[in-house]
Every structure is written in structure tokens, then in C-alpha cells.
């Protein structure tokens, strides 16, 4: 199957999302987070596998069926300026989903609804005729959120929704998303490289590395007792204001490998501080116990259920390869 020029951006990823649930997806650039988002929305055809939304397979061709489904699945992007049309006043952009789907009543009614959405996301009525470049980053993201919410979606895919925003604005937008979610009950796939933001928002979190989910579980478990050596490094590398100077930070060597040329065995083994010989040859599978899952030879099953984490590199329990 695999030819010379194949880039497996996402490799055998499986996850489910309950109604009203927020699944956080973390990982570094190029790990396949955004590709997963696009696959979920049917913007990309998967080479294999399928996405099922409310019992129906999401088609990846631009059929009427896809369009109907997409009404219930919306996306919030990282760069709001890129996601908005610079030549349209924001109110028209917020009302555009109504036009596209032919709903929302007359032009005046649509405008009214768009105005209500603006208020809901914390934009001032006098900003209605502003163009995106006249707004701040936080306000632009509010426009994108308002537009995404216009059709009352049941699934919201948020791809790094606050990464481009300042801290105080980031908090506003996160709180806004949380309020809106409580009000409208949407499910969300929440993608971010920022573990702190994901912990704030997600009910469950999946960690991706080179196109695969390497660990999954409740945020508190994954971030406080990570099983996979990659998650351990990620968590330890997250800078915090709470006195972590000189703590046990695991600094991984090297960059993530090119996804065109995924290392054999466990894809993480060249950077893994605790890899053993087996990791170079055997691909670990994602095994589940209860609400946790991990894909690592060293994070074994601990006798009475549950996993034992991979050894911490500083414990020197195992010799690195």
C-alpha cells in the first residue's frame, strides 16, 4: 500500500465523541491534529476508515448530503483574519451561513439574528459594519465564533482557537466557548498545542504524535500521571508560573521526524529517553484499560487493572538505547 511518496498525516486514528463532550487533541505541529480535524468534517477524503456523525457516514465529496451534515458541524480556526473575508463587513459574514443554507428568514431577519449573535459573543452593535482589519485579534475570533454558532451546530471543531490571542483575551474566548457550550450543548473537538488550555476545556484528552494517538484519558490523569514517555516530556515542558524553575524537566532531543519517513517500530523511539531494543522493531498498539489508553511497550499493564507509566528518564531504571 505504502508507496514512496506517501505522507501518512494521520495513521489509524480512532476516537469517539459523546454528545456534549469536549475531546481535547494535543500534540506538536505536524502530528496530524489539524488533518484529523479536516477528516472529521469531511473536508478531506480518508485513505481508509470512516467518520460517523450521528449514525451517518460523513461523505468527503461535496454532495448535498455533506452540505446538510456540515450545517451541524462547524469549525473555528486559529487565524481568524485568514478565516474571514477582508472585504465584507463582519455582520454580513456572520449572517452568511443563513444565506448559504437558505434559512433564517428575510434579509432583515438574518441581520437581526446576526446582531443577536454578535451580542452573544461579546461584540458591540456598532461594530457590525466593521471590516476584519478594523478589529482586534480577540474580536475577530469572536466573529468567527459567532459565524460558527449561527447554525447552532452540534459539533464544533476548534483548531487552536486561542493560540493567536493575548492572555486576557484568551481567557475571555475560553470562557465564552464554555458558556456557549453549556447553553447550546455542542460537542467539540478541541485542538491545541497548549496543554493548559486543553485541560481547561476538555473532558477527555488524546495526545497525538506523528499521526497516531499515543495516549488518551481524562485530562487530570493524562496531565498529572502521564503514561507515555512523550506525554511525560510534553507535560514537563509546559512552562508554568507556579515555581517550576529547575524542576524535573524532560528535554527531548531532536525534532519530530518527517512524517514522510516515519521511523520503524515505535515512531517515537528515536527521541524517546527510555526506549529499549524492542521499541525499534515492534510498533506498539493503543491498548485500553478503563478510561485510559496508551501506546507504549514500557507502559505496561499493572497487575490489577490500569497501567503503570513508562519509567521516568531521570529514574534511570532502564538504559536508553
Amino acid at each position, binding site marked *: 500500500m505504502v508507496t514512496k511518496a506517501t505522507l501518512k498525516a494521520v495513521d489509524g486514528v480512532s476516537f469517539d465523541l*459523546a*454528545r*456534549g*463532550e469536549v475531546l481535547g487533541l494535543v500534540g*506538536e*505541529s505536524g502530528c496530524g491534529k489539524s488533518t484529523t480535524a479536516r477528516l472529521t468534517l469531511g473536508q478531506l477524503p480518508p485513505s481508509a476508515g470512516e467518520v460517523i456523525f450521528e449514525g451517518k457516514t460523513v461523505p468527503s465529496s461535496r454532495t448535498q448530503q455533506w452540505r446538510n451534515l456540515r450545517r451541524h458541524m462547524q469549525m473555528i480556526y486559529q487565524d481568524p483574519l485568514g478565516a474571514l473575508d477582508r472585504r465584507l463587513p463582519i455582520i454580513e459574514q456572520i449572517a452568511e451561513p443563513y444565506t448559504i443554507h437558505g434559512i433564517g428568514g428575510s434579509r432583515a431577519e438574518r441581520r437581526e439574528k446576526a446582531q443577536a449573535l454578535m451580542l452573544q459573543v461579546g461584540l458591540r452593535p456598532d461594530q457590525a459594519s466593521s471590516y476584519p482589519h478594523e478589529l*482586534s*485579534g*480577540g*474580536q475577530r475570533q469572536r466573529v468567527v465564533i459567532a459565524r460558527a454558532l449561527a447554525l447552532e451546530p452540534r459539533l464544533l471543531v476548534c483548531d487552536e482557537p486561542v493560540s493567536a490571542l*493575548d*492572555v*486576557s*483575551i*484568551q*481567557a*475571555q474566548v*475560553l*470562557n465564552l466557548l*464554555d458558556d456557549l457550550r*453549556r447553553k447550546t*450543548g455542542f460537542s467539540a473537538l478541541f485542538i491545541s*498545542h497548549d*496543554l*493548559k*488550555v486543553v*485541560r*481547561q476545556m476538555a*473532558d477527555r484528552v488524546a495526545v497525538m504524535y506523528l499521526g497516531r494517538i499515543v495516549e488518551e484519558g481524562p485530562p487530570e490523569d493524562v*496531565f*498529572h500521571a502521564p503514561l507515555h514517555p512523550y506525554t511525560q*516530556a*510534553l*507535560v*514537563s*515542558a*509546559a*512552562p*508554568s*508560573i*507556579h*515555581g*517550576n*524553575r529547575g524542576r524535573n*524537566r524532560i*528535554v*527531548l*532531543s531532536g*525534532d*519530530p521526524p518527517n512524517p514522510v519517513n516515519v521511523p520503524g517500530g515505535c515512531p517515537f523511539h528515536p527521541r524517546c529517553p527510555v526506549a529499549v531494543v524492542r521499541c525499534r522493531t515492534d510498533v506498539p498498539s493503543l491498548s485500553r484499560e478503563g478510561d485510559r489508553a496508551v501506546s507504549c511497550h514500557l507502559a505496561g499493564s499493572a497487575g490489577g487493572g490500569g497501567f503503570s507509566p513508562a519509567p521516568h528518564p531521570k529514574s534511570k531504571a532502564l538504559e536508553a538505547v
Partner: protein
Amino acid sequence: MTHSGKQTIFKPKQQDFLIDVRGLTVDFDIGNHYVRALHGVDLSIRRGETLGVVGESGCGKSITWLAVLGLLGGGAKVSGSARFDGQELVGLTPRQLTAFRGGRIALIFQDPASALNPVHRIGRQIAEALRLHRGLTGKAAKEEARRLLDRVGISNAAQRLNEYPHELSGGMNQRVMIAMALAGEPDLLIADEPTTALDATIQAQILDLLRDLQAETHMAMALISHDLGVIADMADRVSVMYAGRVIEEASAEALFERPAHPYTRGLIGALPDIDGPRHRLEAIPGAVPAPSALPPGCAFSDRCSHVETICHKGPPILGLVGGEDDHSAACVRLDAIEDQELNLASQPSKLVHQRAGLQEGVEA
């Protein structure tokens, strides 16, 4: 100018500062009038020290340093003082400034890929810096470039010299930028969001590298970042900027343990954390005012929950925070709000409960 009579005016000791910026103002010419972007910024860094400069976009944290180095172009009017090792930099001609730029004072930026020239090999770009600042050419320059790349942790340095920026990852390009900055053997490194564009594990590598280099060369560093975690991790002292002013200054420890200014408290409260109870974030309402539309008096007054009439009377100046001689904040109501603890840990994690309820309800 009105401020609380009780306040002790903060006067830094003029001791061994490598760089001492006093009353720096920047006005931008926007056609028919000037807009003030910096309103008298005071910052200072000792040799070997790391000053963290935090603040949100538009607060002037980058402009301060660009102004110091005369990099703002003709549309900007810079006044005030910036003494670097005894030499006044404000008012120098571009020609005079080139003696400092990139040499004794080096800059690294957020986006290494756009700071590097895409059509020249890495080696040539580092060699250019070496020629300009150290007079090295030919073989000597090449050898030194290789040594620098090696020093910043690029493996296979000799081969990398012949590569172009697009052939390297973001983290590697930032290492190249750091190598170029080191080429001039700087006394002061201005690092403007050096890890913002990088992944978490790469960020950890670069911060470690900067820390090691600083210990080795004893250079001073101005670390500009919006990421309080990075600042807490790296800085000895921290200046918090808001709307073109420094509004709080303290040791990193004091700042994060006992933030005094409502804005600093707000920033810390707005930050999600990886430990501790999960609580609703305390967002600061509103947005940073435009430089042309600052509220009268304290620029933070229209977003501040402690605002009183006195706050509108004039911009507050930095005053010592009670009982600490290395901690100052620009707020006239410091005494009144001092006792109000940051109500973070004390708040029950309402969010978590509601969330659990929501989920159960849905799944049932």
C-alpha cells in the same frame, strides 16, 4: 500628576546597570498627528541578568527595544534616555548605532524563518554577522560559524552551513538565529518572543539553550514574552507593561507570588494552569485600548474592578509596594486592594461540577 500621597516614589539605584532606559517615549506619525505609543518607560538590566518583559500585543514591549536600537524608522519620534554601558543611545545617528546593533546588543525574533534570508545559505548569513561584528572573513569566519552552530546544538554543523533556511525546522532556524546573535558576542541579548512559534518540546530546548549560553557568556537578556510561564521560568526580574507603560516591576518570585497591580493580578487569574483545581478563568473584561484612545488617568481604569474616581485623575507612577524595596507598581489604589487575595485557589471548582453534571445528563 496625582498619586496617593503615602506612596513612596520608586527610585532605582543607579548601580551597575548594563542598560538603563528612563522616560522613553515614542510617538508615531500617523499623517496629521502623532500618537504616543510609549509614555515614559523605565527599564533597566544588570549584567548577566534576565529581565522578563510581559504584556499583551500593543503594550509596547517590543517597541521599547526597537526604539532603543533606532529601528522604528522615520515615522517615529523617540525621546527620553537609554544608557547602554554609560553611552546614551537615544539620538545617535544610524551610523553610530550600527556599532551597537547586532554586536554588543543582539536581537532575536519570534519567527526565525522570516528573519533569515531565504535565498542565502545558513553559513553565509552567520559569516556576514561575523564579518560585520568581528571582522572575520574566509576560513576563519567559516570555522567560527561552524563552532557557533555546534554551540547552539545543531548536529552536523559543517553540513548545515551549506543548507538554506527552508531545509531546517523552526527550532533549528531559531538556533541559527541565536548563533547569529552570538556572532557579535553581545553583552545584551534582546529575545523577542523567541519560542512563541515553536512546539513545546522545542521551546524547552531553546529556553535551556538560552539559559546555558547566558551562564557561559554572562550576557544580560531582555526576554520579551506574552507567556507568563516562560517568563516565570527564565526571568530574574519582570517588568509588566500595559498600554505603553511599565505598570509593575519586581523580582520574578515576588511578581508571581504577590502580584500587586490589578492588571498583573488579572493576567495571572486569566491563565489556565496544568495543576490545581480547574476553575473558571478570570478574564479581564474589555480589550487593550488603542494608543490613540487611552482613558484619562490610569490606562487600565476602564477594565479594572478596583477603579475609583481618583484613578481618572492622572496616570499613576510607579510606587513601591508596601514593605518590599524591589517591587513597584503604578496604581494609586495599591493600599486599598493590597489585602484582597487573588481568589483563585479559594474558589470552588464550579466549572468541574457543572461539567460533570452536563455530561451525565447527556450520557444517561
